[in-house]
């Protein structure tokens, strides 16, 4: 097998070796349950307390704030929305999210709408930036929570989180921020912006999978969505995943140390990648914001061809990439992010989502820019679509399809 080059870091990253090393003693040596009074148990309790500090420091949390460990970002997002909504139901029943949110936010909001809550999905511009005027307008006297992501993992757009926080703070509505895609790549600071709740994922920080965290400011009350023995401040019951939590803590500390380097180095690599691809391939376009974008993200669409076919050809060349094409999704639905940004559905099929990481080098970018053009050329030669034969003239009404 050819050596694999990972340009799909938003889907999964290898656990950092230092993180793995930090975790190892917590499998056999320090196996204790932190709820136990004995020494082995207390060693685990100490390790979790340490991990809370490490995670808190990555996001600028105050000492009295809470870091609640969960099974991952999906659970943290569920806890943020459901836990907050149930706890504060008497104050109102309205939640505001955006159209760019992760499905663990969108589908949780949908779920809540069946439990007597209502939600508004604020739209975005063509670059995927949340319409802050619409956000302001969406606030009613029933609004109890605003949940907006810091950055989008698919198209890379970074939201004007300071402006959004100011809108929320002026209206005295708590703000939840999904920072899964941004943490470790750009500065995230809950205290600076007055963020009340914030979601993190361990694997996105080069920690183990199956761990995440929900940050809550000290005065924010939540109703548990998992009940039991009262672990994690009584908010998230269940014996703690000690080794995983230790791993997430170590990963957060490393991410904080490497943040500045990451920003500079990855931004440079990303720009080489975008420039190289757009220069070499006609009818290719960058999705997402040209400058307000994650240092590791390049989302590029290629007209007249479909992304799964590109992805498969790239995998034969050793490149791991993702596509926004509906053809690889479980639902066969096109990317809700690209749709919200106004990208035509036919064009959205040809989008590649490239996310760089720590181990990527200039040589990887050079090789990618070299192997991609012949693949695009080959698939375009196969396609009936071209500059002269555009998308919109072939609407076949008889054809039964998945829509």
């Amino acid at each position: 097998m050819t050596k694999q080059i990972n340009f799909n870091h938003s889907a999964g990253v290898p656990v950092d070796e230092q993180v793995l090393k930090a975790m190892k003693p917590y499998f056999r040596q320090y196996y204790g349950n932190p709820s136990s009074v004995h020494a082995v148990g207390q060693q685990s309790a100490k390790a979790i307390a340490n991990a809370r500090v490490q995670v808190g420091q990555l996001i600028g949390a105050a000492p009295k704030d809470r870091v609640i460990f969960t099974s991952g970002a999906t659970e943290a997002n569920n806890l943020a929305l459901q836990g907050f909504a149930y706890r504060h139901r008497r104050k109102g029943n309205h939640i505001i999210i955006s159209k760019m949110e992760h499905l663990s936010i969108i589908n949780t909001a949908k779920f809540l709408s069946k439990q007597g809550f209502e939600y508004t999905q604020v739209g975005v511009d063509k670059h995927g930036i949340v319409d802050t005027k619409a956000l302001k307008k969406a606030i009613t006297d029933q609004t109890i929570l605003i949940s907006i992501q810091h950055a989008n993992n698919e198209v890379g757009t970074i939201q004007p989180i300071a402006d959004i926080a100011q809108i929320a703070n002026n209206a005295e509505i708590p703000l939840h921020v999904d920072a899964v895609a941004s943490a470790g790549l750009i500065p995230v600071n809950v205290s600076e912006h007055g963020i009340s709740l914030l979601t993190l994922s361990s694997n996105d920080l080069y920690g183990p999978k199956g761990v995440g965290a929900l940050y809550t400011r000290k005065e924010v009350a939540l109703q548990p969505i998992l009940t039991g023995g009262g672990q994690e401040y009584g908010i998230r019951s269940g014996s703690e995943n000690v080794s995983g939590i230790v791993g997430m803590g170590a990963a957060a500390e490393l991410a904080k140390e490497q943040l500045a380097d990451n920003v500079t180095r990855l931004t440079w690599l990303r720009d080489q990648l975008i420039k190289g691809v757009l220069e070499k391939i006609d009818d290719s376009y960058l999705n997402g914001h040209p400058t307000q974008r994650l240092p590791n993200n390049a989302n590029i669409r290629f007209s007249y061809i479909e992304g799964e076919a590109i992805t498969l050809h790239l995998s034969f060349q050793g490149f791991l990439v993702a596509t926004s094409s509906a053809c690889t999704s479980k639902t066969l639905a096109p990317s809700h992010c690209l749709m919200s940004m106004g990208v035509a559905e036919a064009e959205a099929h040809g989008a590649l989502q490239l996310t760089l990481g720590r181990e990527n080098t200039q040589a990887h970018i050079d090789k990618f820019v070299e192997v991609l053009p012949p693949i695009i050329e080959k698939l375009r030669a196969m396609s009936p679509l071209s500059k002269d034969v555009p998308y919109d003239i072939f609407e076949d009404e008889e054809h039964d399809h998945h829509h």
Partner: protein
Amino acid sequence: MYSKTVIDHFTNPRNMGEMKDADAIGKVGNPTCGDLIWIYIKVKDDVITDVSFKTFGCAAAIATSSMITEITKGKTLKEAYQITRTDVAENLEGLPPIKMHCSNLSADGLHKAIQEYLRKTGRTVEDLK
């Protein structure tokens, strides 16, 4: 996810490209859905003497297009009209379930091309029976 045969036809598609002197073209699919398949046929004495394709779509769409050109060449119009989506999938050693419906359109494209040829020669599908 895909069988070896699908990958083979996807990587080295047979009979790919526009046929300038085609007797009929069958166009199916919709770029909005991510699949568009054109099947070109050349017919002599009601036998398909040449067939080619152009396809916009995923690996399954490309492989099914390539496969149908292989199993169609040399067949009579009547024989070719009986080729189904299932035949194409079986010849490819199966398709992922989710692709069976959405990307397995090449048989429809072939049928449309045959209908078009029959129409041009003043006949309908009924005349094949």
